[in-house]
């Protein structure tokens, strides 16, 4: 009986996730996401990341949604201040609307407008590593 109830629940959850991914698959994502370069003074297209969108209410962690020159979602990025990576702080239930993840990059960033402190970029790539070239420049 329990299994019978579980099957439709999982199917529904899977469908909702797919719908969420569809909603952000092409730029621009719907509100409350906003173009980062219109929120702070940054280049519209950031080499290595792409064109970024974020819900300002989620700063600094994000998620930031990154798109290539054709408006295709390539990654979801979280920006975690290094000072917050300590025993008294955690980042829970960060939204992940981008769908399937191919691979993950984690690297240090010295800061930039919007997140003006050293932080870590956690990048969920939705494309294969070879396709990262689409946002290289």
């Amino acid at each position, binding site marked *: 009986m329990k299994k019978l109830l579980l099957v439709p629940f999982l199917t529904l959850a899977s469908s909702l996730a797919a719908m969420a991914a569809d909603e952000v698959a092409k730029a621009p994502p719907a509100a409350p996401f906003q173009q980062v370069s219109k929120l702070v003074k940054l280049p519209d297209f950031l080499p290595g990341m792409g064109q970024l969108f974020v819900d300002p209410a989620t700063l600094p962690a994000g998620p930031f949604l990154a798109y290539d020159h054709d408006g295709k979602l390539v990654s979801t990025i979280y920006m975690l201040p290094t000072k917050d990576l300590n025993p008294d702080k955690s980042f829970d239930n960060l939204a992940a609307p981008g769908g399937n993840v191919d691979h993950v990059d984690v690297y240090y960033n*010295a800061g930039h407008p919007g997140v003006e402190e050293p932080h870590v970029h956690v990048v969920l790539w939705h494309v294969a590593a070879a396709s990262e070239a689409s946002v290289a420049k």
Partner: protein
Amino acid sequence: MTVARREVLGLGLGGGLVAALSLSRRDVWAEEVVEIRMQGRADGAQVWFDPIGVLIKPGQMVRWTNYNPGNSHTTTAYHPANGKPLRIPEAAKSWDSDYLLPDESFSITFTEQGVYDYYCIPHEQAGMVGRIIVGEPEAHGGWMEPVAASRGVPDEALKAFPMVEEIMAKRIVGRL
């Protein structure tokens, strides 16, 4: 009282304001513009001014240009007007370029002798700072002492300043 001027130059992006240097006698010998590059690694892991320390003459212009295609930078004086302790000569005017996008520039003509410390707003905590010394050391032995106010300045920034003596000796101190 300093008469430092502030001009913003638009370089490489379709023009902008052109710096208008006055043609005083002082400017004739100090006409060479000192260029300071705002730079960063492609992944944003490191950012810096280069050179990080320069010795210039009174009346000489310094121009900062953002050569970092993936980031914005500022040149901002350590001054109470910018919410920071005073680390420029008391008589000098404060400055803040605001964010410079890639290829944008900002220039100032320095006239007041002394030590000027400045930083990049989003990258101060990452140690992106610089130091300019204006004047002739042999004629002004006392003024070159580094200004001491450091409350509110991150350790990474304090560690990054080149020594006054090193700038005096080399005139230009590049990024290590």
